[in-house]
């Protein structure tokens, strides 16, 4: 396996979608290749950054309106 091919298998690897044989060859390459290991590490960093994007507080105005709607629903339901 060459680096130029290994980089295109990164997602299949992370998703557990490689066949056992492909996975072994992939891991064997990665173990001996600093560049591909760094690339995989960069993808993992990208994943961490993206999950950080989800941390966004609810604006107070919206939270208040939602809670009011929830109380309304509750009073009609409980």
């Amino acid at each position, binding site marked *: 396996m*060459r*680096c*130029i*091919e290994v*980089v*295109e298998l*990164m*997602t*299949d690897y992370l*998703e557990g*979608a490689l066949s056992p044989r492909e996975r072994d060859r992939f891991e064997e390459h990665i173990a001996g*290749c*600093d*560049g*591909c290991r*760094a*690339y995989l*590490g*960069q*993808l*993992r*960093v*990208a*994943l*961490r*950054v*993206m*999950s*950080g*994007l*989800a*941390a*966004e*507080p*609810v*604006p107070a105005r*919206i*939270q208040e*309106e*939602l*809670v009011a*709607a*929830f*109380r309304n*629903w*509750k009073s009609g*339901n*409980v």
Partner: protein
Amino acid sequence: MGEGSDLEALRHGDEGAFVELTSRLHGPMLRLAMAYVGDHHVAEDVVQEAWLTAIRSVDRFEGRSSLKTWISGIVINLARARRRKESRLVTFTSLLRGEVGRGPTVDRARFVRDGTWREPPRRWENMPEETLLGKETLARVGVAIDALPAKLREVIVLRDVSGLDNSAVSELLGISAENQRVRLHRARAAVRKALEDYLG
């Protein structure tokens, strides 16, 4: 708190649980709505409407999918409807026709003739957290995601921003696991590239 107890708490009108849930899911839902409507204010509207819809229909929710998947589905439906309705979003909509794309995801110039790295990528693992998760880094990744073709954007937001698993995403978007992986691969490669342009 587990998914099942979230659902029970909601059904029993537990306000604390509702506030906690809306706080926890706001970011993922907002990003998801943004992936379709492209405008922050419109996306906020969609999220709010999604919660109102969820409150009204929580008694009918059968719990076959997770609560988060279910609410994501509501956001997608509302955001798609909103996108169709709002003509002022038309410039953004033009991006929505974007295709998945094909070909290599890493510039061929990065490799020498035998297919090995010309210059290997840098290691980011040891960079300080405040750089990796700083405002500027997050903003750049946000911009990179917004610039993706719609078919890639919806997949990467659901998987990597919202953190839904592959089966939930295949179900929500009605696409095969393979198709999802192809889209995810291209999308992640683009985000990595944007990070590399910034971090070096």
